């Protein structure tokens, strides 16, 4: 905890495992989000550093998903500032946030059910397509090169996540675990600066969870993608992440390395309950 409180904006930072992570890429400052009279998030601040895996954990209803929705622009907080790449971000629509290089997945999977896996992954490239309308429909020159390029990246991601076998399958036919992986592939295809994962392991069995954990680590390792993820399964998070934010009832009750957080009395109380005498 102590080491974390020393904020060193510009420099890199060495985690407990000896991994070096980069400078701050996103910072949330005193975020407060209300729904009517309910405060879903109360005055929370934390940062995300380049190349790290940052987890946001907490019991059900702690406000984790709300936090992720603030980052991705689906919710606009009443108070507080979002800083991204060294500049304050004005209130934005979700599609504008996506265009800025923040990709996400959803807790309840939001895929294009009618399209094939490949088409789904290709939609991840939409923000990267530049050539004109006419050129695209005629498929000539620059547009063709671009299409080929985008296709290559999509295929690379598909290979990487080991879903080649189902490339042409309509998504609606896939089982739950694979859908989660396709959603990850689509987000990854955008080559995002920050990848937001909303409960990537929710509803999975042990084997699927292990697979997903491996993919998340590999993505971070191979592409150097900064990942912020939400999970309520403590065990999984501790193995995966470099730094952890703990939320409870909309407040931040802990922030630091997995080891620090695990030994934080407030966190233990939140998860296991406190004896009231």
């Amino acid at each position: 905890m102590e080491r974390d409180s020393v904020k060193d904006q510009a420099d890199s930072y060495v985690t407990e495992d000896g991994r070096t992570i980069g400078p701050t890429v996103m910072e949330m400052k005193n975020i407060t989000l209300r729904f009517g009279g309910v405060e879903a998030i109360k005055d929370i601040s934390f940062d995300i550093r380049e190349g790290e895996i940052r987890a946001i954990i907490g019991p059900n209803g702690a406000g984790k998903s709300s936090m992720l929705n603030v980052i991705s622009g689906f919710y606009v907080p009443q108070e507080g500032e979002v800083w991204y790449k060294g500049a304050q971000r004005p209130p934005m629509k979700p599609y504008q946030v996506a265009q800025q290089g923040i990709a996400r997945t959803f807790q309840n999977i939001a895929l294009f059910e009618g399209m094939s896996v490949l088409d789904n992954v290709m939609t991840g490239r939409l923000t990267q397509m530049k050539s004109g309308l006419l050129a695209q429909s005629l498929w000539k020159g620059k547009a063709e090169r671009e299409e080929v390029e985008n296709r290559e990246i999509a295929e690379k991601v598909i290979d990487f996540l080991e879903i080649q076998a189902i490339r042409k399958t309509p998504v609606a036919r896939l089982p739950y675990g694979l859908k989660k992986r396709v959603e990850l592939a689509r987000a990854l295809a955008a080559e995002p600066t920050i990848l937001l994962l909303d409960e990537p392991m929710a509803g999975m069995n042990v084997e699927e969870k292990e697979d997903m954990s491996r993919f998340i680590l590999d993505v971070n390792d191979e592409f150097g993608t900064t990942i912020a993820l939400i999970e309520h399964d403590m065990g999984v998070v501790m193995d995966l992440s470099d730094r952890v934010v703990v939320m409870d009832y909309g407040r931040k009750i802990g922030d630091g390395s997995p080891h620090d957080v695990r030994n934080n009395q407030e966190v233990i109380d939140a998860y296991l309950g406190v004896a009231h005498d």
Partner: protein
Amino acid sequence: MPEQLAFTIEVFMNGLMAGVLYALVALGFVLIYKASGIFNYAQGVMALFAALTLVGIMEGQVPFSHLINAILGTEVHHFGWHVPAFLAIVLTMVVMIVLAYCVQRFVFRYLVGQEPIILFMATIGLAYFLEGVGDLMWGSEIKTLDVGLPQGINVWIDEFTFEATGYGFFIDNLDIVASIVAAILVIGLVMFAQYTKQGRAMRAVADDHQAALSVGVSLNFIWILVWSLAGFVALVAGIMWGAKSGVQFSLSLIALKALPVLMLGGFTSIPGAIVGGLIIGVGEKLFEFLIGAPFLGGATENWFAYMLALVFLVFRPQGLFGEKIIERV
């Protein structure tokens, strides 16, 4: 070849041609329904409005002239110029795009996430509003639309079939043009949806709003785009209908024939709209010729399409090409 058979074939051909026009209107319905889940009752009126605007611009009519004259006591009706057909079509398209923007900005932006029936009611309102505005802008008299499309019997087909079979087929040039235009339009739309960024974004929005947002697609932009496309299809349909039977307000009623077409073809399928249109067109003409006129006293064309749609609703509610309806428990 016996006279009767040759005549039947001719009726069949004419049915195909009529079907193309139904299909054109149905196509506009499918576009909007696919991308936004809105069943646009106003599609027929949009075709009428587009045709009215086109004629008005071509003839240099002063829009809202009756209103202006009534208020100011003036007598203006025409600017006194004639706009060439091509330019007028481009200008009309601009009007349709402005209309698309307004529809999204002032109506449907406030209805996002509402029940389909509410969206449908809004389009009924839009239909009557647009009909009224069309009347007010350009007047309600029947107008002839001549954008220079070839009309009248195709002599070449007439002579060729006369030599081959001893019976000359009567096929209208305009119908042939309409078929070619429809084919180009469909191919264009399919290419657009499959290969362009905007087309891909359109399909994404049609499938899942939240997911579309998360890959950087602006829903508002796509909806305006889709309404503009539907406006374009309406314009093409308006030109064809207008050239065939004059620009008149009954056009919006004829457009209702697109409903049975959609029930046949499925609400979400572009090829379905075309095939459905052709089946209805051929079906009603052949039925009238073979059964209606000789045995039922004629005038079956008015109800045949709806009857066929009813039969389809009983046996295949999703249409020929519609997505299969699966309810999981």
